[in-house]
């Protein structure tokens, strides 16, 4: 039976994404051969999922609560501003109260004239209390709808870093905002899930910007490149470069834009001019250059050295 301290360490490291390859292999071996370790792993996974569910739910509740609270505060302030004329039948019996003067000093609603009126005229209080409930209920529904819409839209539109490092304006980030250039930092490739579903593995030092086009996710490539994986279920992608535009709705394609000349000349190495290289592993891509469209299919590789 495995040492339980070591087992826990391996499981926690794995769940936090900190396990090395050797530790991963050790954990996998234990999971396959030791049912006690597998049980501990399941316990840890349940706790992990429970915590994620709790905190994400709490996040939504806090957001909705703050929206409702803000709406209630605005409603109370409005009541103080406009008085109660014409609200309902009770206004016929209740004395007409003049609206507050614009620019008068703020009085907390619990101590202001509206609060005094509520204490003096219960009928008015009942109506306004119900109105408050309706407003709160509507605000809650609107906030929930807006929250859900925001979440779905946010999930569909944002691009996220899966592994590696990228920086935006010199700051490291895991969410890539639209219309802002980012750079792949560090010596390893960066894997990004684009808004719309496609995945891309970008080379170090790649400089690009992601935009949301009408029919495709646009990657504006300034230099560098990588492997793009687009499935038919995903939003198509359009890779815009100064030497051509590569578009696909289903392909695995490597697009590399070399923009810099080599730092030194070597008689044994051919000079690499600025160029765009497109290599298709599977699927079909189109390359648009100088008004002409070229289709490339699986196994084809083309290098373009100028835009015409």
């Amino acid at each position, binding site marked *: 039976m495995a040492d339980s301290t070591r087992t*826990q*360490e391996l499981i*926690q490291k*794995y*769940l*936090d*994404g*900190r396990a090395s390859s050797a530790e*991963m292999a050790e954990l*996998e071996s234990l*999971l*396959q051969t030791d*049912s006690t370790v*597998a*049980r501990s*792993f*399941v*316990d*840890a*996974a*349940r*706790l*992990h*999922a*429970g*915590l*994620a*569910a*709790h*905190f*994400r739910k*709490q*996040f939504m509740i806090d957001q909705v609560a703050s929206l409702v609270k803000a709406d209630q505060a605005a409603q109370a302030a409005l009541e103080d501003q406009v008085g109660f004329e014409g609200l309902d039948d009770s206004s016929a019996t209740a004395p007409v109260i003049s609206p507050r003067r614009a620019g008068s000093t703020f009085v907390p609603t619990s101590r202001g004239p509206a609060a005094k009126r509520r204490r003096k005229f219960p009928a008015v209080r009942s109506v306004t209390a119900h109105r408050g409930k309706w407003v709160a209920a509507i605000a809650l529904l609107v906030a929930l709808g807006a929250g859900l819409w925001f979440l779905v839209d946010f*999930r569909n539109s944002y691009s*996220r870093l*899966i*592994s590696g490092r990228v920086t935006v304006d010199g700051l490291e980030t*895991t969410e890539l905002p639209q219309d802002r250039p980012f750079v792949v930092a560090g010596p390893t*490739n960066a*894997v990004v*899930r684009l808004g719309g579903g496609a995945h891309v*593995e970008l080379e170090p030092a790649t400089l690009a910007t992601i935009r949301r086009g009408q029919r495709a996710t646009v990657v504006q490539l300034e230099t560098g490149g990588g492997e793009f994986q687009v499935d038919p279920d995903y939003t198509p992608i359009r890779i815009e470069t100064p030497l051509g535009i590569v578009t696909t709705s289903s392909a695995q394609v490597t697009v590399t834009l070399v923009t810099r000349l080599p730092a030194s000349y070597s008689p044994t190495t051919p000079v690499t001019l600025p160029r765009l290289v497109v290599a298709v592993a599977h699927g079909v891509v189109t390359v648009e250059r100088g008004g002409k469209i070229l289709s490339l299919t699986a196994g084809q590789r083309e290098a373009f050295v100028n835009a015409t």
Partner: protein
Amino acid sequence: MDRQEEYLKLLFGTDLELRAFIGSIVRTPHDCDDLFQDVALTLWKEFSRYDRGRSFGAWARGIAAMKLMQRFDRTKRSPVVLSPETIEAVARAFDNSESPSNRAEALERCLDELPEKSRRLLALRYERSLKIDQIARELQTSLDAVYQSLSRLRTKLHDCVNRRLSVQGIS
């Protein structure tokens, strides 16, 4: 109860378990959400073939395991990093230890007992989905300190949940 209602009832009864299983194989919340949606859709499409005599959770996990295995590729930086053999072993372990339905409630109670500082640390990890190094930067402490604190908290919560469940007569 119509078919759709029955499906939703079964799905919502086991969604936390299903998420726990998927989340144990794909660790980023975003990928976990994507896969959960994909699995939920497949479960609905295949619902006519579901054998009511079988546990819905086990059936759903079986389909999720198949999808996870299909995505396994160590060389392509796939979100699935565990091998099909390991995925199968994990699915089996989930099948052999069905979780009591009041586990979430027990966890809520245990979280209520934690000091604010601990809750804040957990919120950084699970609400904002920050990585350990990002948390360390935010709290201006070392990676190891964050890792140790999180490990201690999880152990404490795990013990607390089990204690509460055993008091209620569920192991």
